[in-house]
């Protein structure tokens, strides 16, 4: 399908027409994600962020499209590449940036860093430093929703690499036999660190793995925020009735796996071809061409996004580091 045809299909028969407000909210969240990551990359180069971090540049449509289809009370589990998921779920940018700088005002009081941001008040039950670490947790969270008779769902983000972990198979199987409301959302960015999916699995689509557990698997263009939104929105109703579903969002990570990655395992041409398919530019183009937002409105959203990130940076930089007195806090409840 060409992009045009896909766009037509999204706003086609049977699917809700998305409001200008929602679409612009998705646009600004995608911008926040991109700008946040660019800022983190800069901080890294300046030696201000330590450890490692896994940037989400290029995959913004997947997180923001998916989370925009969720309510605040719906839960997500996230991954080591989780900044986009956090922003999609409506996290506070200031606290998130502060966490990356290891500050006391950060989401985890400076103890979690990039890979462990959680905001239980907004349904984010945690990023995860372990590939596949969130699968089983999402099943347990869905069990809570069922047992407490809450009409919400859990969305479990994971990558193509995590679908080769045992926990993926155990979790899909259990969620299936217990008919739990989990949307397993695979962000297939084509590489597990340096290894292309063609060398780590012998199937083209992760989605086909759903069949082994008696559940539905669907593929969606992960660079198309609107398509991802519709897929998740539809899945939300589906999983409440039928138990879990597996959605595979096909996307691409523009940067290396982490900051230590020299990115030598793929060609400049390949990366460039995916940059052409930039999900943010694509949404902007759609908003303009469909006459939903004017160029001036979109420029002003972009300006706002930049200001928000600058403010987050300022907040983070002006925040104190946690006191050494807190080092033993919160090991136990």
């Amino acid at each position, binding site marked *: 399908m060409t992009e045009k045809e896909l766009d037509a299909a999204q706003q086609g028969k049977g699917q809700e027409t998305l409001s200008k407000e929602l679409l612009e909210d998705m646009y600004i969240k995608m911008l926040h994600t991109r700008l946040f990551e660019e800022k983190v990359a800069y901080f890294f180069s300046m030696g201000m962020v330590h450890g490692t971090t896994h940037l989400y540049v290029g995959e913004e449509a997947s997180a923001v499209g998916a989370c925009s289809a969720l309510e605040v009370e719906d839960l997500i589990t996230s991954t080591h590449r989780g900044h986009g998921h956090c922003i999609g779920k409506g996290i506070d940018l200031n606290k998130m940036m502060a966490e990356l700088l290891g500050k006391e005002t950060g*989401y985890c009081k400076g103890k979690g860093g990039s890979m462990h941001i959680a905001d239980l008040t907004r349904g984010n039950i945690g990023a995860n430093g372990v590939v596949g670490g969130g699968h089983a947790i999402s099943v347990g*969270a869905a069990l809570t929703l069922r047992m407490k008779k809450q009409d919400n769902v859990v969305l479990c983000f994971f990558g193509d690499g995590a679908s080769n972990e045992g926990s993926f198979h155990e979790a899909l199987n259990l969620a299936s036999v217990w008919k739990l409301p989990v949307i397993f959302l695979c962000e297939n960015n084509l590489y597990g660190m340096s290894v292309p999916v063609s060398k780590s699995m012998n199937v083209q689509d992760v989605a086909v793995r759903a069949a082994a557990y008696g559940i539905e698997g669907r593929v969606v263009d992960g660079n198309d925020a609107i398509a991802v939104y519709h897929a998740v929105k539809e899945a939300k109703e589906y999983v409440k009735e039928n138990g879990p579903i597996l959605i595979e969002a096909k996307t691409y990570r523009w940067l290396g796996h982490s900051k230590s990655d020299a990115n030598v395992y793929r060609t400049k041409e390949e990366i460039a071809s995916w940059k052409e398919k930039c999900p943010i530019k694509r949404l902007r183009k759609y908003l303009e061409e469909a006459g939903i937002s004017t160029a001036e409105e979109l420029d002003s959203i972009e300006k706002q996004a930049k200001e928000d990130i600058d403010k987050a940076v300022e907040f983070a930089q002006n925040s104190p580091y946690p006191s050494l007195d807190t080092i033993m806090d919160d*090991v136990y409840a």
Partner: protein
Amino acid sequence: MSEITYAQAIKEAMSEEMRRDENVFLMGEDVGLYGGAFGVSVGMFEEFGEERVRDTPISEAVIAGAAAGAAVTGMRPIAEIMFSDFTTISMDQLVNQAAKMRYMFGGKAKVPMVLRTPGGSGTGAAAQHSQSLEAWFCHVPGLKVVIPSTPYDAKGLLKAAIRDDNPVIFIEQKLLYRRKGEVPEGDYIIELGKADVKREGKDVTIISYGRMIPPCLKVAEELAAEGIDVEVVDPRTLLPLDKDTLIQSAKKTGRVLIVHEAVQTGGFGGEIAAVLADSEAFYYLDAPIKRLGGLDIPIPYCPELEKNAVPTEEKIKEAIKTLMKGSAKA
């Protein structure tokens, strides 16, 4: 007071907590209609139904991880792993997820889950069904580790574990399941992290736990006839460890033998020895602290070999006598 088995005590604890709090539920392999591989949950399926006594597939990673996920979102799951050997398959979920969530999320999460699992040897099940892996879990801040040695302790400690807001590894001893002991009717709690002096004595302290407690007590009685007065202290909870009670006992008797069935190298006995050596008890010692752990081997199948892979009454007695000889007081 009535005499019930260790297994019945565990079941009473679970059932009473499930009646008291609707957020408590049980999940694991064959815990439902089958009643658990060791019969611990017999009858609970009938009372609470399949919603709250949940049979799972044979999938240890997701059993532990789903318990963590349910706990962090507001339930109080009890997950059973059929043999503690199989917690190896759940390790990521226990060590990297459940134990870490609270700290790495800056104190925002609570993970009130209990992982029950039978440990230890003595059933003839050989190397993959007989291990004592408690030291592994004790090496992970964020977890609590409990090993009860009597029906009374099992019930009171399990109730405390279920009400605790942290992930608790509750290791049950297969060989103790059928042992009876006095347990009061109704509700009582044994606080986690409190040791118990199982027998008072003045000459030498045995620090032991789990299924090694009965042989240690038996040896203590036998040695009493020979004029050696043995104190037996059971920490009951290894993490957090009640250091004070252990230190006080060591100061009182001046001699310490640590007994556990887990293999000696890297075993928890080393930690207990270090705690004592690093305390004021050191100045009261009349002999070096002695450890008696399992042999550094996988548990063998042949009954005589299996029996001798872990401390026997004879070896415990011999170790005590060596300790007594090596001291000025002897």
